[in-house]
C-alpha cells in the first residue's frame, strides 16, 4: 500500500515480539482478522505462531459469553514457538469478548474495544452490571475505546449497503488500526479481499474502505504515542508458507504416498478436532487419494485395514473417543501385521469431555488400549509444521515395518499454525515398503525380513500369492491358524520385538541445550513450543537446564537411558496427570521423575513453566 509505505521506517519503536489477540462474537470474523494479521506479518519475514479459540457452540446467540471466538497471534523478530502466554494487545469487539479475555492481559498492556458495542443490553448479556469502560475497572490498562461501529458505518454510508453488510465490515476497521500500530502494509489483505469478494465488488470496496479508515483513524488519533515495528526474524533460507497442523498432517501423508509409490487411502469419521484432515484430503482425490467417510469410527479403521490388505498406504484419523472405538480393529492390524497409520488428535477427556480443548491424556490408551499383548509404534508431533514430518515418519515406519503406527497430535497444534519451510517431495527420503517377492520366488505370508522382522507383503491381484490371513493366532512363517502354546509365546514375543527393533530405525534423542546438567525437562508432543521457550529463557540466564522432547514414544530413542543418566533432576511435563511419567517409570525405573502436569484444556504457559523450573533449579 503505497500511501502508507512512508510511515514504515521512521518513528518506530522496534519490538522483538508481540502477542495480539482478536476477540469478538462468532459472527464478527475474528478468525479471518487474525489470519490476515499473521499472514501479513509472515510475509514481512517475522516468525509467527497462531492459535484460534473457537466457541463450543456452532453459532451461539449474539453477544453471549459462550459465543466469543478468539484468535491469538504471536509475531517476532526472534524465534517464536508458541502463540504466547500474555497478550500485549487485546482487540475486543464487544463486552463479552472483553469479559472472557481480559484475564490474559497484564496491567499496563493495551486493550482496544469497540465502544459502540458497550450498550446496556450487551453489557447485560456479558454479565456486566456496570460499564467497565466507565467505572474505572480498566484504569490499569492502556484502554483505547474506539467507536468502531459508528466509524465503519460512516466510512461506507453512501454505498447503500444493508445494515448486516455494513456491520460485517467492523472487523476490517479493527484490523486497520492494528496494522497501523505495528506498521504493517495493507496490500496483502486488500489482495485477499479482492479474491474473496471479487464477485461482489461493492462488498469488496466497502471492506477496503473500512480497513483504510481504521488505519487512518489510528494514525490520526495518535492513539499510541507511536507505532511499533517488528523486524524480520532470522530464519533458515527457503520458501515459506503458513501451515495449520491438520493441513500439515494431510500433506505429510500425500508426500508419503508419493514417495512410497502407494495409493493413499483414508477411512475416517468426522470428529472435532480431527475432521479437517478428512476435509483437506477430500479436496485432493485426483492425486490418487481415496477418502472414505464411513458410518462410524470402526468402519473408518476397518476400511483402512481393507485398503492396507489391498496394498495401500492406509490411514485413519480421529480423536480420543474415536480411538477408543477403534481399539479392537487395531488389534487385528497388529495380528495380521498390516501397515496402518492411526492419527489421534487429542482433546480434553474423559468421555466427550472438552471436545474443543487440548490435552495429552490419550497416551496410555494409545500404548495399551487393546486386548492381549498388542504392541504398536507410537509417535507424536510437536508443532504445526512438525505434523508434516511426523505424518511422513509414521507412514515410513508403518510401510517399512509392517505394523500399525499411532500418531498423536492434539487440538492445540492441529488448529495452530506457523511458518513452514516448504520442501519439494523430491527432497524427501524415499520410503521403501515391504514387498512380496517376484513371481515364482518362494514365499509364505509370514516370511520375514530378518533385520526388521517385517513380513513380506503380497496383495490381492498378484498371481501366485493367494493366501489367507486373520485375527486368530498365526503360525510363524506359514501364517496358518495355530493353537500351539510355544508358537503363541513365540509370536507374542516376536510382535513385541518387531516394534522394539524400530529403535534402530529412528533418530536418537537430541537435546535442546547441553548434554548434561542440573535439570532435564522431558516433554512429548504438542507442548514443545512452550517447553522450548521456557527452557531457552533459563539457559540464557545461565542455568544448566536442557530439554529432551520425545517424538518417538514406542519404542523410545535408544539413547534415552543414557541421556537421563547425565542430569541431576528430571521433570516430566505433560497436559495430563502423568501418563508419560508412568511410562518412563516402568521403562527406566532407575531414575526418579518429578512431574509437572496441567489438565485444564489449555496449553502450558511459558510463564508457569519458567517459574516451576526456576523453583526446581533453586531448590536443589
Amino acid at each position: 500500500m503505497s500511501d502508507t509505505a512512508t510511515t514504515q521506517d521512521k518513528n518506530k519503536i522496534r519490538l522483538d515480539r508481540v502477542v495480539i489477540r482478536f476477540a469478538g462474537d462468532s459472527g464478527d470474523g475474528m478468525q479471518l482478522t487474525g489470519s490476515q494479521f499473521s499472514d501479513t506479518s509472515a510475509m514481512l519475514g517475522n516468525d509467527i505462531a497462531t492459535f484460534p479459540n473457537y466457541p463450543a457452540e456452532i453459532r451461539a446467540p449474539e453477544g453471549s459469553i459462550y459465543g466469543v471466538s478468539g484468535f491469538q497471534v504471536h509475531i517476532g523478530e526472534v524465534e517464536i514457538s508458541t502463540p504466547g502466554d500474555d497478550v500485549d494487545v487485546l482487540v475486543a469487539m464487544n463486552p463479552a469478548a472483553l469479559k472472557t479475555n481480559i484475564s490474559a492481559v497484564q496491567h499496563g498492556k493495551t486493550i482496544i474495544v469497540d465502544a459502540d458495542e458497550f450498550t446496556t443490553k450487551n453489557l447485560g448479556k456479558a454479565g456486566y452490571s456496570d460499564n467497565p469502560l466507565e467505572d474505572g475497572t480498566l484504569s490499569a490498562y492502556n484502554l483505547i475505546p474506539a467507536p468502531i461501529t459508528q466509524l465503519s458505518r460512516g466510512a461506507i454510508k453512501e454505498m447503500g449497503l444493508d445494515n448486516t453488510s455494513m456491520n460485517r465490515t467492523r472487523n476490517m476497521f479493527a484490523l486497520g488500526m492494528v496494522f497501523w500500530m505495528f506498521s504493517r502494509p495493507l496490500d496483502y489483505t486488500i489482495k485477499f479481499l479482492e479474491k474473496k469478494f471479487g464477485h461482489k465488488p461493492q462488498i469488496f470496496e466497502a471492506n477496503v474502505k473500512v480497513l483504510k479508515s481504521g488505519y487512518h483513524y489510528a494514525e490520526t488519533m495518535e492513539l499510541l504515542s507511536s507505532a511499533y515495528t517488528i523486524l524480520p526474524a532470522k530464519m533458515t533460507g527457503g520458501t515459506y508458507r503458513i501451515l495449520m497442523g491438520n493441513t500439515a498432517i494431510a500433506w505429510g501423508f500425500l508426500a508419503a504416498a508419493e514417495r512410497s509409490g502407494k495409493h493413499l487411502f483414508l477411512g475416517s469419521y468426522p470428529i472435532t478436532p480431527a475432521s479437517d484432515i478428512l476435509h483437506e484430503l477430500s479436496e485432493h482425490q485426483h492425486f490418487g487419494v481415496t477418502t472414505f467417510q464411513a458410518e462410524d469410527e470402526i468402519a473408518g479403521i476397518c476400511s483402512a485395514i481393507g485398503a492396507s490388505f489391498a496394498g495401500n498406504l492406509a490411514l485413519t484419523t480421529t480423536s480420543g473417543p474415536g480411538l477408543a472405538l477403534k481399539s479392537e480393529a487395531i488389534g487385528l492390524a497388529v495380528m495380521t501385521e498390516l501397515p496402518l497409520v492411526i492419527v489421534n488428535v487429542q482433546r480434553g477427556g474423559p468421555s466427550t469431555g472438552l471436545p474443543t480443548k487440548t490435552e495429552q491424556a490419550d497416551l496410555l490408551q494409545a500404548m495399551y488400549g487393546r486386548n492381549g499383548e498388542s504392541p504398536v509404534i507410537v509417535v507424536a508431533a510437536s508443532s504445526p509444521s512438525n505434523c508434516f514430518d511426523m505424518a511422513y515418519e509414521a507412514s515410513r515406519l508403518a510401510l517399512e515395518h509392517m505394523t500399525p503406527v499411532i500418531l498423536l497430535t492434539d487440538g492445540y497444534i492441529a488448529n495452530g499454525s506457523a511458518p513452514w519451510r516448504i520442501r519439494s517431495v523430491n527432497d524427501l527420503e524415499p520410503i521403501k515398503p515391504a514387498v512380496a517377492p517376484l513371481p515364482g520366488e518362494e514365499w509364505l505370508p509370514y516370511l520375514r525380513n530378518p533385520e526388521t522382522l517385517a513380513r513380506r507383503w503380497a496383495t490381492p491381484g498378484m498371481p501366485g500369492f493367494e493366501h489367507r490371513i486373520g485375527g486368530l493366532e498365526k503360525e510363524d512363517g506359514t501364517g496358518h491358524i495355530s493353537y500351539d502354546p510355544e508358537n503363541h509365546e513365540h509370536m507374542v514375543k516376536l510382535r513385541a520385538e518387531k516394534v522394539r527393533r524400530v529403535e534402530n530405525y529412528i533418530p536418537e534423542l537430541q537435546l535442546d541445550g547441553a548434554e548434561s546438567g542440573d535439570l532435564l525437562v522431558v516433554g512429548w508432543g504438542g507442548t514443545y513450543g512452550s517447553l522450548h521457550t521456557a527452557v531457552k529463557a533459563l539457559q540464557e540466564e545461565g542455568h544448566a537446564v536442557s530439554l529432551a522432547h520425545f517424538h518417538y514414544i514406542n519404542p523410545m530413542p535408544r539413547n534415552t537411558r543414557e541421556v537421563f543418566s547425565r542430569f541431576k533432576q528430571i521433570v516430566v511435563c505433560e497436559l495430563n496427570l502423568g501418563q508419560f511419567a508412568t511410562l518412563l517409570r516402568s521403562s527406566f525405573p532407575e531414575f526418579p521423575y518429578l512431574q509437572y502436569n496441567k489438565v485444564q484444556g489449555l496449553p502450558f504457559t511459558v510463564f508457569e513453566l519458567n517459574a516451576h523450573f526456576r523453583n526446581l533449579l533453586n531448590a536443589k
Partner: protein
Amino acid sequence: MSTQPPTYTFKDFVSDQEVRWCPGCGDYVILRAMQKALPMMGKRREDFVFISGIGCSSRFPYYMETYGFHTIHGRAPAIATGVKLSNPALSVWVMTGDGDGLAIGGNHMIHVIRRNVDLNVVLFNNKIYGLTKGQFSPTSDLGQKTKSSPYGNTQPPFNFGELTIGSAGQFYARTPDNNPNDMADIFAAAEKHKGTSVVEILQNCVIFNDGAYDSYTDKTVRDDMLLYLKHGEKMIFGKEKNKGIRFNGRMLEAVTIGENGITEDDILVHDAHDYNPSMHFMLTQMDNPLPVGIIRSVETPTYEERMATQAESIKNRSKYKSIDDLLFSGETYSV
C-alpha cells in the same frame, strides 16, 4: 488382467486347509457351490478376495484357494469396502452369518448396501450363533429356545430381504442350502451384478438349530412352500403348478388357479429389474409360500463408479498437477 483367464475347475479353488465344520453342516454345500461357481465367472483366481467376520460361516475364506481375510466380528463389509475401493478390479466377497452380519455387523451391512459398493454379500442364515455354541441371533424365531433364551426368544426377528430393500438395496436373492446348482447360479448372477449383491442362504445348523427350515425345504412340503422366482415369468408354484401370486389391493397373496374364478391372467409376472422396489418389498413379506431366487436386481451406479467419475473430473479441472504444486500453492514467501 490382460490375458484371458485360464480354464478353472472347482478344484482350483480348494485350499489345503482341512474343512472344520460339523459333519452335516449346511456350510459344506455353500462351499462347494462357490467352488463350482467361480470358474464360471471369467475372472483370474488372484482377483478373487473372500472376506469374513467371525462365526462358523466366517471360516469360509480359509477353504478357498484365493485371497482371503478372516477379520473380526461384524466388520467384514467395512473391510471389504476398503479392499474394493482400493482395487475395483477385484471380485470381493463378504461371507457372513446372521450374527456376524446382522447383529454386531448390522450397521456396516445396511451402509454398504445403501452405498451400493460392488461387493457380493453371502449371509449364512442359520438363525443361531453357531460358533459360540448356540445363542439366539437377530433372525431367530420368536419363542426359539437357545442357551441365552432358555424360556424362548422374545425378540422379533429381522427379515433380511425386507431389511435389504429398506436399506435401498438393489440386488437381493434368497436360496435354501440344499441345492448347490441353483446356488452356484445365484452366486454367478451376484458377481455379474454391479453394485452390492445380497444373497441370503437358508442354512441348516445341525448342532444348535437343526431343521430350522424343514417347514419349507422338506421334500414333502417344498413344492407348496417355496416360490421359485424367475425374472419375466409368472409367479406360479405348487406341486400341480396351479398356484400363483396376485395383488389383492393391500398386499400379495397366494391363490389357486381355477378356484374362485382365478385365471392365469390374474397371476403376476416377476420383474426383478423394476427400479421401484414396491413389488420386491411385497415379495419379502410373504412366507407361505416363501419366495426364493433373485427377488430384486437393478443396476444403478456403484459407489466406486461415482467416486471414479468425480476424481476424473477433478483431475481435469484441478490446478494442482503434482503434490509440489499443492505444497507451493497459495501465499508463500521467501527468506
